[in-house]
Structure formats: structure tokens, C-alpha cells
């Protein structure tokens, strides 16, 4: 009885995930072990060649560069997101909602449009450079666009809301008495943050960081538009393999590696959070 109800309730969800997530990923994985056809199709001959190619220094460098850009994006998002989330968590409940909506508001507009907006802001004739020149702070425009700076700026802008939301949920769960107890025992505000607030919000930091990192490392639109196509990230590489080079098996192999890394990160994070929750659940 209960079992059948469970199937009825979870069935559609599971079917949905199977159809849109598991099957495509499985196909991708399968494809990554075949050879590329001469005219861009797939020759169904089993091979490890795609994976061997993927670890070639040329591609390894792209991996590394992507991880670096995603890593810096994550750190900046954390540095910007933590104070923001902290402030929102300390607000009275009514105001919290308004600020959380403001944080999420950009997510409801089109990603491409938001990214183009950054081109307008960052280019040589853009708002930022013109303002700085107008103020007499610089003589020549700064190279703000079509470099790592632009990519990291765009990615940070796009994903910092996820960081804030993850941190907010973690910080707002923290009982204010814990900070007060720390103060009462003689800790300075900085010490209270280091010894109490920070360790207890580590799960939120981990969740937010994994989110931002995973989303950033797979992104190909922002590197394309704001990096000017000069800087290839792993997302661009996969995109190119599928649509330009038409080497589906190789593209699949790289994608499989990226998915593997993402899943490993998410799993580690989930396991850590679970273990912590078990240890520290407030009885």
C-alpha cells in the first residue's frame, strides 16, 4: 500500500530525471568510448583513445585554466557573498525576504542579456572606463574586456546569488545565543567569527562553493562573450568539439571527465554535511 503510493508520488520525478539526465549522461558516456567517423558521425568501434587524448598537455592546460578561473570566481563570490548573507541573516524577518528577492532578481532575466550588459560596462569606450577618464583617474582606457578579469567578473556576477543563498540558509540557522555566549566568555567579535560563526557555517560555505565552482567550470557563454573567444575554457572546448570540430566521441570524453569531477565534488560535500549533521544535531 505504502510502497505503491510511494511509486505514484515519486514516479513522475524519477521518470523525469531518467529521461532528461540519466539517459543523456549514459549516452554521453557510451559515445566517449567510440571512434569518430570521418564525416563527423560516430564509428562504433571501442577505444580508449579519446581519454588518452584528453590528458594531453594541450587539453590538460585548458582543464587547469578552467579550474583556476572557476576557483578564483568561487573565492571572490565567497568574499562578496559572506558579508552579504551575514547582513541579511541578521535582519528582521520581514526585511530578509525583500533582500533575498533582490538577490535572486537577476536570475529571472536572460543570461545572455546580462552578459552583454557587462560588455557595455567593461569595454574601452564603456561606462567604467569613460567615468574613470572623466574623473581624471586614468589617461587611457583600462583593458577590462576580453581577458580573465572579464570572465571572472561575469561569472562572479552570475553565480554570487547561489553563494549568498547557500550561505544565508547556513548562517540564519545559527542561534544568535551562540555568538552571544562567545562574547560573554570574553571573545572579541573577530574571535567569535573565527571560532564559532565560521566553523558552524562551513557546510554553507562548502555548498555555496561547490555550486559556484561547478557552474563556473562548465560555463561556455561567458568565456565566449567576455573572454572574446581568446581564452578557451573547458566548456568552450566541449562546445567546439560537438559543434565545430564535430568530434562527438572526444567531446563526450571531456564532458564525462568534467561530470565526473563535479559529481565527486558534490558527493564529498554531501557526505561531509551529512556527517556533521549527525554529529551536531541539536537534540
Amino acid at each position, binding site marked *: 500500500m505504502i510502497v505503491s503510493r510511494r511509486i505514484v508520488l515519486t514516479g513522475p520525478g524519477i521518470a523525469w530525471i531518467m529521461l532528461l539526465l540519466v539517459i543523456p549522461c549514459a549516452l554521453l558516456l557510451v559515445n566517449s568510448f567510440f571512434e569518430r567517423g570521418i564525416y563527423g558521425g560516430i564509428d562504433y568501434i571501442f577505444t580508449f583513445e579519446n581519454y588518452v587524448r584528453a590528458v594531453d598537455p594541450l587539453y590538460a592546460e585548458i582543464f587547469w585554466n578552467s579550474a583556476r578561473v572557476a576557483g578564483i570566481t568561487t573565492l571572490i563570490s565567497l568574499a562578496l557573498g559572506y558579508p552579504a548573507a551575514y547582513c541579511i541573516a541578521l535582519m528582521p524577518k520581514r526585511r530578509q525576504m525583500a533582500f533575498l528577492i533582490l538577490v535572486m532578481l537577476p536570475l529571472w532575466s536572460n543570461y545572455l542579456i546580462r552578459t552583454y550588459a557587462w560588455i557595455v560596462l567593461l569595454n574601452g569606450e564603456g561606462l567604467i572606463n569613460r567615468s574613470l577618464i572623466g574623473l581624471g583617474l586614468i589617461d587611457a582606457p583600462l583593458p577590462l574586456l576580453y581577458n580573465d578579469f572579464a570572465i571572472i567578473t561575469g561569472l562572479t556576477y552570475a553565480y554570487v546569488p547561489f553563494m549568498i543563498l547557500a550561505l544565508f540558509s547556513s548562517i540564519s540557522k545559527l542561534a544568535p545565543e551562540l555568538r552571544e555566549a562567545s*562574547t560573554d*566568555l570574553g571573545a572579541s567579535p573577530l574571535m567569535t567569527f573565527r571560532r564559532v560563526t565560521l566553523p558552524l557555517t562551513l557546510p554553507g560555505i562548502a555548498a555555496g562553493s561547490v555550486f559556484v565552482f561547478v557552474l563556473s567550470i562548465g560555463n561556455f557563454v561567458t568565456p565566449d562573450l567576455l573572454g572574446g573567444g581568446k581564452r578557451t575554457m573547458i566548456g568552450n572546448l566541449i562546445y567546439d568539439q560537438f559543434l565545430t570540430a564535430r568530434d562527438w566521441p572526444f567531446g563526450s570524453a571531456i564532458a564525462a571527465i568534467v561530470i565526473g569531477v563535479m559529481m565527486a565534488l558534490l558527493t564529498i560535500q554531501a557526505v561531509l554535511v551529512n556527517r556533521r549533521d549527525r554529529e551536531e544535531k541539536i537534540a
Partner: protein
Amino acid sequence: MSALLEVVGVSKSFGEIAAVDNLSLSVGGNEFFALLGPSGCGKTTLLRMIAGFERPDQGRILLDGIDITGIKANKRPINLMFQSYALFPHMTVFANVAYGLEMEGLRGAELAKRVDAVLELVQLSALAKRKPAQLSGGQKQRVALARALVKRPKLLLLDEPLGALDKKLREQMQIELKRLQQETGIAFLVVTHDQEEALTMADRIALLRAGRIAQLGEPRALYERPNSRFVADFIGQMNFLEGMRVAEGFAVPGLGLFNAANLDDLPLGAAGALAVRPERIAVQDTEVAGAIAAEVEGLAYLGQDLILHLRLDGHDRPVVARVHAANPITMHVARGSRLWCGWSPANSLILSE
């Protein structure tokens, strides 16, 4: 006894609500002082101002004669034991207790020695390596106490320290707290809304009402000489017989004239109530001269005592009497029984407000 803590004319409002209203009190150096009062009367707010988490709108707080009103919470030699205990969930019992000492710069063997000594004092040595989630309510309460005591504060504030415990454990911990206070010589300022708890533990009690002190004094004084109906009613149980001061005594309509311990304090013509504690009413099953006849309307058996709801002849409000189980009338009294009751004037008070 020289005053350790002095609260002088302190007020604090939240918007429209005056949580604490021009309140003054002082606590002695080795005193067990209880703040008692109904929910929302400002007990926690007062404690938080003394601890330094809330700034008074008005008034001053002195510790050892020094004004600490403007000093930050982390710089006051006062510790607060939180109602929720507020133990750090990511630290062991040992680390929780050690935290406050680390903030004083203590390290290594000296730190371990002091922590161990306090854990010994609260009988938690065996659990030093556990995390708070692995402790029972009573054990958490003792960790919170140890964490505050280890700092050797001049004054320890405790906000409903026993609120989360069941009755049996509460009674045990009341004695424990009293013992710890005497052994450490630290002044305790304990918030409670349980009058029995305050009576059991405290050297002095301040009963609060709507941010003000209703009465301050030793437990006995509050119980035996309440200054108002509110105090009389809050501390223990009290019967009130409405009446008026006349030339010959205190007249209660339908019952006659009474004398009382404080009869002479009340001006002629003033209205008030004659207040008698249930256990001070003497009850007999034979008629005696001067006793008031009554009928038993209901009874409740409490083991060591029997509670009788009596309707006095000629009076319309029921009166409660508490009879000790050793009294022979408890053997055969039942609903509808006729009894005779009375009390000595020394055991009754007239309360006009």
C-alpha cells in the same frame, strides 16, 4: 554585606513596551539572589543589560562601585548562563569549558588543570570528550554551568537555569546550584518564574511585575508579609476575603469582624482583603466557639496534604484550606461534610492593593 552589583534606576523600552522601568536593586558579594516574576515582566531584559548585551535607555549599572554601563560584554567580569545553554555544538565538553579561559590567554597544563577541576566540581569528568549533542538535558545544563564557572566571574547570571529539566532533576539541581554557589563563593543572580524554586534557593528575592519591583526581600518576608495582593498571589497560594476597615476591626460582609497582624496600618473606611494562607486555616469537625461553619465543596488528595475547597456559611466565594495528612479529619472528610474553621490574627494580613 557590601554591594557587588548595583542597578540604579535602569529603564529599557522596546518600542512602546517598557520592558524594564526605572528599576533599582543591589546584589551582595556572596549572595544567591533570585529574580522572580511572570512571563514578560522583564527578567531576561534586566539580565541581558547586566551582562552587556542590551544597553539601558536610562540608569547605571555598577560592579564593585565601578560604572560598567558602557563596557562591552566581553570585557565584563560577569558571565551569563543562557536559558538555551548555548553550548558550542562543534566543540567537545572540554573545549566548551576551555573556551573562556583560552580567551584570557591561558594555554596548556594550566588551562587543562582549571578545566578538569571545574568538570570535577559539576561531576562531568567522564564526559569531557563528548559533543553537546551526545548529552542529556541535565548534563548540558551542567556543562553550561561549568563553562561559566571556570571563568571565576564575580557575578554569575543564570537565566532559568533549570527551565528545561523535569521536576525530579530540577529539585536535585536546585540543591546542586546552592551547593556550587556556596563552594565557589560567586554571587549568583538567578532568573526564574517558579516561586518554589526561588524560595528554596535564594537568600533574597526580587519579585518583578511589568518591569518594576513589586517586592524585594528574604523569602520568608515575601511569603509571610507580602505587600500586595499580586505578591501574595504569586508566591504560594492565598485566600482573599474582601471587606472594609471599621472602628472595631476588619469587616467581611456575611462573616463578621476580624483582627489581623497589620490591622492598625489600615486607615478607617479603607477597602481591602483579608489574606489567609490555605495551610494557616485550622479545620475541625466539631463545633467550637468563634469558628466559622463551612461545607466541603471539593477535595484534592496530594499525598502529604489534603486540599479542601470550603464554602463558608454566609460568604459566597470559596476558600481553600490545606490540611496535613496527619490530621485525623482527613480520614472521613468528604464532599458535603460540615466543618468548622478559623485562623489566628497573626496568620492573616490585610492587603489594600
